């Protein structure tokens, strides 16, 4: 018996020693840092940042997250990249390509681009980068075999449909020699150069990606960008070291970047506040107000191409019982009601009191920051140049409210004394579990309750929520959308009947046969003129016209028409435009981010 205790004790002591040994060994730094703040030990050659948790994939073709894209722009060199000009604005410059030439329009309307690669470019293992690596990578990313989330980013390339459908192996792209890439697009698009800077368009080498696990381990991770991956301690940290094989290595000023993988905003903030990390891409929502005060120079609110909105299920009947309306009349009435309800919400309250992160009240669906043909913001020209579909300033609050009540009175019984509607059907607002979404849901609920409209709140866990919303198994739901590139089509083609993102269920179910929409494109030189058509006959046609349109000005005019049609249904109720908030230490210079939210650390220095 005594022996047993002796053994247990010995084991315990050994373990405690191991424990101490471990913390003593690793705690070397802790010991030195113990008496003085961590700031004094910051190494100017290493930047410690935390932008998100473990990326799902660092294969450029498979990544579909913004944080993954941030790491990828450091690891890979595509044909183009973003750079910051002296005045702080961003520009697209050639990266692996010597220049970004104009495309040549062919007889059939397709456009051919020819790129020449720089001399002497090498992969991180020393092999030369060839034109074929790009061709291979693009076909791979678009293929149905890989089934990448962002395979559709190649939709603009001629031959994409065949490759994505599994009928062909190669799109209309070709490496005519080791240095030359020839690619043909279905038609001219304005954002092509931007796509070239998108991770899905980065090159990968065939023999490297043959190993399916290549992108999970630094030893097999071969890249061609400014950095190489020197360590990936899963769920904890990814270390990038400057790549001496990169052709422009001289301009890269930050020798080493540690991407700490954390999904806890509180933990990120703690590490920022104690000086361990110099940049964090998330902060706890309830701390925002205090942080803005405490860190006026470090707390940054940047623009982001996204809209937070509420979507209705188009097939949800919100008319009162016995309204006697059907077909087009009923749909027009529902659209009018939905648009009226949208006017009952105080978007300034939502952004100032709930969001608190500098979000901008939204008066249209296509997000702030997306540009129009004339160089202005697309939203400024929305609704025939009115800059929005309704007024969102605080001064218009009362007039919006009055207008909404007038419209609703046409359809529902209104008790003047109490200011309440008495026969509005009860609805349920669906959102994914999160404090922020809940707070917004509660606000919407109270705004409707004030006029006697009863809206229940229901929350679902993220994955369940996505399925419910996609299936149209809801009446009203929280929604949000971020652009993949600076073109309004990102916000518009998602609402076609067949789109997988058509959460509103346009053209589906009962709505399939609702002929309530009109479209006249004759002023833009098209034959299309539909009166009282279905969604498929109007919106779907309009989107396909946009996708094949080669004239920039006409194309943007078509996109405005699409947004008009969309907003006319009232099924989309935009609340605000997203912003990207992050904190960066004032000692870090040379940092920038792009509107898609990618962060660039390669040109940073620590003073």
């Amino acid at each position: 018996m005594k022996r047993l205790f002796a053994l247990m004790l010995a084991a315990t002591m050994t373990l405690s020693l191991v424990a101490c040994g471990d913390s003593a060994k690793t705690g070397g730094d802790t010991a030195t840092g113990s008496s003085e703040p961590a700031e004094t030990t910051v190494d100017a050659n290493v930047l410690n940042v935390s932008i998100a948790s473990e990326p799902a994939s660092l294969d450029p073709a498979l990544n579909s997250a913004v944080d993954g894209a941030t790491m990828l722009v450091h690891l890979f060199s595509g044909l183009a990249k973003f750079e910051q000009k002296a005045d702080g604005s961003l520009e697209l410059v050639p990266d692996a390509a010597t220049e970004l030439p104009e495309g040549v329009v062919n007889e059939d309307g397709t456009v051919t681009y020819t790129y020449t690669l720089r001399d002497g470019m090498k992969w991180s293992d020393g092999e030369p980068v060839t034109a074929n690596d790009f061709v291979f990578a693009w076909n791979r990313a678009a293929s149905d075999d890989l089934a990448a989330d962002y395979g559709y980013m190649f939709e603009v390339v001629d031959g994409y449909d065949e490759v994505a459908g599994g009928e062909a192996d190669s799109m209309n792209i070709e490496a005519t020699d080791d240095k030359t890439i020839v690619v043909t697009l279905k038609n001219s698009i304005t954002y092509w150069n931007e796509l070239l800077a998108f991770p899905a368009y980065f090159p990968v080498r065939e023999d490297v990606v043959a190993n399916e696990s290549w992108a999970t381990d630094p030893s097999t991770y071969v890249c061609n960008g400014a950095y190489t991956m020197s360590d990936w301690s899963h769920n904890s940290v990814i270390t990038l070291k400057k790549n001496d094989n990169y052709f422009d290595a001289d301009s890269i000023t930050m020798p080493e970047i540690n991407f700490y993988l954390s999904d806890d905003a509180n933990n990120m903030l703690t590490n920022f506040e104690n000086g361990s990390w110099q940049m964090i891409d998330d902060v706890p929502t309830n701390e925002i107000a205090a942080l803005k005060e405490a860190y006026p120079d470090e707390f940054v609110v940047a623009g982001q191409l996204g809209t937070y909105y509420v979507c209705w299920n188009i097939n949800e009947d919100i008319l009162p019982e016995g309204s006697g309306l059907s077909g087009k009349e009923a749909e027009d009435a529902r659209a009018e009601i939905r648009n009226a309800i949208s006017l009952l919400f105080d978007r300034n309250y939502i952004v100032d009191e709930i969001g608190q992160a500098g979000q901008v009240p939204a008066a249209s669906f296509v997000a702030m920051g997306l540009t129009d043909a004339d160089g202005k913001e697309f939203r400024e020209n929305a609704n025939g140049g009115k800059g929005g579909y309704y007024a969102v300033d605080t001064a218009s609050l009362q007039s919006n409210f009055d207008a909404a009540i007038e419209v609703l009175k046409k359809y529902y019984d209104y008790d003047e004394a109490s200011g309440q509607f008495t026969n509005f059907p009860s609805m349920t607002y669906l959102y994914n579990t999160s404090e922020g979404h809940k707070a917004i849901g509660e606000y919407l609920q109270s705004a409707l309750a004030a006029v006697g409209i009863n809206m229940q709140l229901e929350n679902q866990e993220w994955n369940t929520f996505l399925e419910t919303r996609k299936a149209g198994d809801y009446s009203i739901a929280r929604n949000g959308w971020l652009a993949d590139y600076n073109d309004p089509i990102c916000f518009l083609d998602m609402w076609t009947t067949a789109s997988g993102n058509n959460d509103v269920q346009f053209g589906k179910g009962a709505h399939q046969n609702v002929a309530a929409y009109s479209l006249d494109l004759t002023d833009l030189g098209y034959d299309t003129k539909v009166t009282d058509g279905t969604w498929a006959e109007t919106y779907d046609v309009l989107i396909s016209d946009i996708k094949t349109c080669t004239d920039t000005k006409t194309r943007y005019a078509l996109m405005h028409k699409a947004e008009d049609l969309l907003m006319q249904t009232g099924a989309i109720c935009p609340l605000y435009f997203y912003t990207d908030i992050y904190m960066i230490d004032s000692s870090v210079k040379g940092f920038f981010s792009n509107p898609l939210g990618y962060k660039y650390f390669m040109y940073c220095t620590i003073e």
Partner: protein
Amino acid sequence: MNPKTLKYILKRLVLGVFTVWVVITLTFFIMHAVPGGPFLSEKAVSPAAQAAMEAKYGLDKPLMTQYVTYLTDVVQFRFGPSLKQRGRMVIDIITDGLHVSAKLGIIAAFLALVIGVVLGSVAALRRNTVLDRIIMIITTAFVSMPSFIMGSLLLVAFTIRVHWFPANGASAGGLVLPIITLMLYPMSYITRLTRSSMLDVLGQDYIRTAKAKGVTGWKIIFGHALKNALIPVITYFGPMLAYIVTGSLVVEQIFAVPGIGRAFVQSIINRDYMLIMGTTIVLATLIVIMNLVSDILYKIVDPRINLE
């Protein structure tokens, strides 16, 4: 080891395998019954891509076929690839996480045991003195304080106020605070357990006999009383070790420790079916084994206990 004990262990092992099988079966079918899926994302994947992914991982087959395939694989210790972290194998993810969680858990558990037993014995021996009261007050406080509060307090004190330890479990010295957070509850519980059972034992006849024969103080405790007083501690220690080693989500979250607890919860949120199954099996097996070990220890400490 006598044949009876051996038979008992074998029986328990068979029962353990059965338990794990039940856990696998329940988890498998419940998991598939939950709405959502591994390939669902905010931006919809094309139906063709979705179908390709499902075919690649065999999710297009009937559920029963998938179940049989999975069981066949698991018997050969093949846990398959992660559905969400493409290119990574489930076994690697589990090994990575368990490595960290086990290191954290074992150190915390043994520190809790040693400190707990010593404090408990001291409190019992000095019953109703100031020392006893202090120990009891402190342990009551620790037992009643949830780990997220304890963790947050330690974090504020030692990483923000004074920069003694990093807030990130992955950096050097980062495991110290999580270990302390994880240790305090079981340590306090063991202290209280030891104290009460020690008081029980100290009142028994054989101790009085020993005292009458002239054995004193610490010798009574360590030579005679502790052995019997530890029986309830051992019963508690086995399952506690299993619980603590398999990862505490809360502590891992607060200190950003890359342990298995986080991997487990994340796998459920992501509907990463393969990873959910893998982690469930590993955790269930660990708990079954720990329970068995604690029962056997129980028998060794108290030979009167009949394992039948």
